[in-house]
C-alpha cells in the first residue's frame, strides 16, 4: 500500500522539486531563462502580427477600384498638406537654429525616429503595456520614448532581439515630468488604474495653485522636456483639479487620448546622443 501511495504522489514531488529548484536558482539564471522564453515566443508573436497584416492586406484587396481611387485622392491631398507642413517645419527649424545660435543656447536633444508596428496587446494588461515588432535589431533602447500622432504612447521597458515592450502612458507604473501648456513649472503625471477598454485616465500631482482646469475648460498637459521626452508632446487633458490636503498644490485627473486603445503603428524616439 505504501509504495502505491508514493507512486501517486510522484507528480507532486516532481512539481515541488522543480519549484524548489526555481526558488533556489541564481538570479542570473532566472533572468536568462525568462529572456530565453521571451525570445522563443517572439517569432510566434511576430508571425502572428504579420498574419494579421496579411489579413488586412487581403481585406483591402477586396475593395472596389472606385474605393481605391477615392482613397488614393484623399492620400494625395494629405501628402500635399504634409509636404506643405514639412516645408514650414524646415523654415521654423532654421529660425529656431538661428535664434539658438544668437542666444548661445545648447542644442535640443535630437532623436532618430523609428516607426514600429504594434505586434501584440494582452487583454489582461490592455492599458499597461504593448509589444512592438522591433527590438535590438533596430537598436531600440530601454527608456526610449514612444509616441504616436496624438502624443505620448509610453516608454520602452524591455528590449528583445526582434520585439520590445512598451510601458503605456495609461499604466500606473509610468510617471512623467509634465507641464501645463503655457507654463514652465514641472508637474508630475502618472497613469491611472484603468480597466480594459474603458476611457483611459491618469492623474496629475503638484500642480501650482494658480492653475485651474475643469471638464468644460480643460488644460492640455504636455511633456516638460526635462526628462527623456522632448518638450511639448501631448499627454492628455486635465479635466479636474482640486486642492491637495496640505494646501500646497492641486491634484487632478487627466483625460487621455482614446486612440491609445487602438494603436497599430507607433514611433520610437531613439536619442542620438544618450549622454545629453
Amino acid at each position, binding site marked *: 500500500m505504501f509504495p502505491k501511495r508514493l507512486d501517486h504522489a510522484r507528480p507532486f514531488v516532481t512539481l515541488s522539486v522543480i519549484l524548489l529548484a526555481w526558488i533556489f536558482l541564481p538570479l542570473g539564471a532566472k533572468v536568462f531563462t525568462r529572456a530565453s522564453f521571451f525570445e522563443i515566443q517572439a517569432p510566434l508573436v511576430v508571425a502572428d502580427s504579420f498574419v494579421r497584416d496579411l489579413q488586412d492586406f487581403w481585406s483591402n484587396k477586396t475593395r472596389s477600384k472606385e474605393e481605391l481611387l477615392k482613397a488614393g485622392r484623399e492620400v494625395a491631398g494629405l501628402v500635399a498638406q504634409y509636404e506643405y507642413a514639412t516645408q514650414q517645419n524646415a523654415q521654423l527649424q532654421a529660425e529656431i537654429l538661428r535664434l539658438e545660435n544668437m542666444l548661445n543656447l545648447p542644442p535640443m536633444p535630437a532623436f532618430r525616429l523609428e516607426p514600429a508596428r504594434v505586434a501584440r496587446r494582452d487583454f489582461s494588461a490592455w492599458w499597461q503595456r504593448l509589444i512592438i515588432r522591433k527590438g535590438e535589431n533596430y537598436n531600440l533602447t530601454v527608456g526610449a520614448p514612444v509616441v504616436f500622432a496624438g502624443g505620448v504612447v509610453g516608454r520602452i521597458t524591455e528590449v528583445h532581439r526582434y520585439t520590445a515592450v512598451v510601458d503605456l502612458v495609461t499604466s500606473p507604473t509610468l*510617471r*512623467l*515630468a509634465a507641464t501645463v501648456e503655457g507654463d514652465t513649472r*514641472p508637474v508630475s503625471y502618472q497613469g491611472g488604474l484603468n480597466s480594459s477598454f474603458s476611457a483611459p485616465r491618469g492623474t496629475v500631482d503638484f500642480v501650482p495653485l494658480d492653475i485651474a482646469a475643469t471638464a468644460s475648460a480643460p488644460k492640455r498637459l504636455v511633456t516638460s522636456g*526635462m526628462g527623456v521626452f522632448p518638450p511639448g508632446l501631448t499627454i492628455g487633458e486635465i479635466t479636474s483639479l482640486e486642492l491637495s490636503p*496640505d*494646501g*500646497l498644490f492641486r491634484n487632478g485627473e487627466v483625460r487621455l487620448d482614446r486612440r491609445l486603445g487602438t494603436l497599430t503603428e507607433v514611433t520610437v524616439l531613439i536619442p542620438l546622443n544618450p549622454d545629453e
Partner: protein
Amino acid sequence: MSKLIERRTHRNPRLLVFYGAIIAMAAVLAGGLIYRQLLNSGKYAERERIQSLRRVVSPGPRGNIYDREGRVLVGNRPRFSVTLDLAELRSELSAELRAVTRNYASLPEEDRPNYDQRLRLARVSVAQRYLDQVNTILRRDEQVRSARLNNHFNYSLLLPYVLLDDLAPGEYARLIERLPVNSPLQVYTSSTRHYPYGSLAAHALGYIGVNTNPEVEDFPGDDLRQFKMKGAFGRDGLELVFDDQLQGEAGGAIYLVDPAGFKVPGSEGTVDKRMPVQGRNITTSIDLDLQQATEAAMKDSEGRDRIGAAVALDIRTGEVLTMVSKPDYDPLLRVPNLAPEADVAKSGVWLNRVTQGQYPPGSTFKIITALAGLRAGAIEAADTKFTCLGFYRVGNRNFPCHNRNGHGERDVRGALRDSCNVFFYKYGVEIGPNLISAEAQRFGFNHSTGIELPHEFGSPRIADPAWRKANWQRFRLADGVWRDGDTANIAIGQGDTLITPLQAACMVASFARGQTETRPSILHDPKRPVQNTAPIALPPADYNAVLEGMEQCYSFGSGRLSRVDGLRGAAKTGTAQLGRKDMAWVVAFAPVENPRIAVAVVLEGAEDDNSFGGGTFAAPVVQAILQAWKDKQDRATGQPVNLSMR
C-alpha cells in the same frame, strides 16, 4: 489479574509526593496562565499594541500672509527632495550585513569590526547604492553621511531619509520620470517658507523658528512611540502674533511595525492616517506697491540702507499701508543686511524701529505745542505774532533758533512753515509744561498704540514736571526740579520726550481727521469703519491755522522736498538730537482736502554729523511715498472720494 491488583495495592509513597509536586507545578502553571491570559490580558495586549505601533506626526504648512490686494508677501514654497524609504530596505540590509560580515571574516578577530560597526557599514553601503542611482540621473557626486544616516536609523526609522534636499525643478522633473514608481527612492515634497520679495517688510512680517515638537490634536496614539517631522513657529512680527492662526493643523499616521521597528509593507502597515491641513491665511493692510516704493526710498545714492524708519497709515481706518525699518534682515536665512564690517550688535538690525524705536520728536512736536497754545488762548490764530531774532532768552540762557539770523516776525502759520524755534520757546514757556504735556497725552503720546505687532515700545515718555520729579534719579538727571529751560526744550520736541515713528504717524493721521487718537492696525479689513475718536475740539480758525502752517511747510517751507506735484499736502519737518546723533523727521498727510494717507519718516544721522536735517534727508522719502500713493490713485480711476471727512 493478581499482578494488576498487586500493582494497585503496592503504591510507592514517594510517588505520591511526586504526584503532589506535579499537581502543584501544574497548578502554578495554570495559575500563571490564568493570571497572564485572563487577569492581565488587557495589560499585555496594550503592551503589544505599543510595541507594534508607531505614530508619525507631520506638521501642516503655515498659512500665507497677503498684502491688502491679495498679493503673497509670505507663502510656502514646495521643497522637493529625494528620499529613501528605509522600510523597503530590510531584506537588502540583511543581505548586505551578511556580505560585510563575510568580507571581514578572513581578518584576525581583533581586527574585525564589531556588529554595530558592520551594521553601520551595511546601511551606508545600501544607501550609497541608491544615492548612486540618483547621482547618475542628476550627474552629481553626492556621498551618504554615515553619522546622519545611522542617527536616522536609530531615531527616525519610520520617516523617509532625505538623500538630497531642495532639488531644482529640472532635477525634480528628471527624477520623477526616471525613478521607478515602486522604488524605495521617492521624490518627496515638503514646504518651506517663501518670501517672494526677500527682505521686504521683514520686521512687520517677522520670521519663524524650527519647532521640533509639533503636536497633532484629537488623533489617537499619543502613548505610542512617536516620530515627529520638524515644523515651524512664529518668532517675531506677524508670524509670532498670529502664530495660532498661521500654524497648520498637524497630520498624523499610525503604522504597524515589525519587531525590528520597520514599517510593515503594504496598506496593512498603515493603521490610521490623517493628512495635515494648511493654517489660515492673513491679509495685512500693507500695500505692496507703497512698501516697495518706501523700501527703495530708504536707500542712499549708493544703494545702501539708510538707518531709520518709515510708516504710512490710511487716515480713515488707521490701517498701516507701509512699514519699513532699516537696517533689516533676510527673514529666510535671518542674516542681517549689513556691510560685513558692521557691528551687528550696535546696528539694531533686529529692532522694528517703527514700533520699538524711541526718538525725541524734534520739531514735529511743534504741532502739539501750537495746538496747546491755541487751546490755552496764548496764541491767537489771527493776531499773534512774534519776532524771531535767532535766539530766545529763558532765565539766564539763550536758546537758539536753527536760523541764527532770525526768521523775523512770524505768526503760528509762519512759525510752523519755517519751523521757528523761537516762536515755540516763547509760547511754550508762556503756557507752561503741563498744558503741552496734556495736549501730547490727548494725542496718545503717553501710551503704546496697540498695533498687532510684538514688543511695541510700551513706555513712551512725555517729559513734564511730574515725570521729572518721579524719574530724575532713574535717568540720572541733575535734580528733580523742572525749569523754564526744560519747558523751552519740550516745546520744540527736544529734552526727554520720546516717541515712536508709529505714534508720530498716528498723531498726524488724527490731526488730519480733526481727532485726537488713531488706533493703527496692520490687518486689512475691507469693512473697517472710519475711525471716530475724540475730536480736537478747537475752533475751526485755530485748527485751520495749524493746517495752513503745515500746508505751507509742505508747499514751500522746510518740508518742500516732500511735495508731490498735483497733490495738496501738509507736512512738518524736524531735527532732533539724541546723544551725538541727529534725527531727521518729517510727518505729513495728503490730500489736504480729503486726507487719506499719513506718513512719518525718521532717519538717523551719523555721529557728529551736524548737516543732518529732516527737510533735507527725510522729506525725499516722504515724497517718494506720496508719489507712489498718488500714482496708484491716478491709476485706480473711479474710486469714490469722501470729501466729508472732517
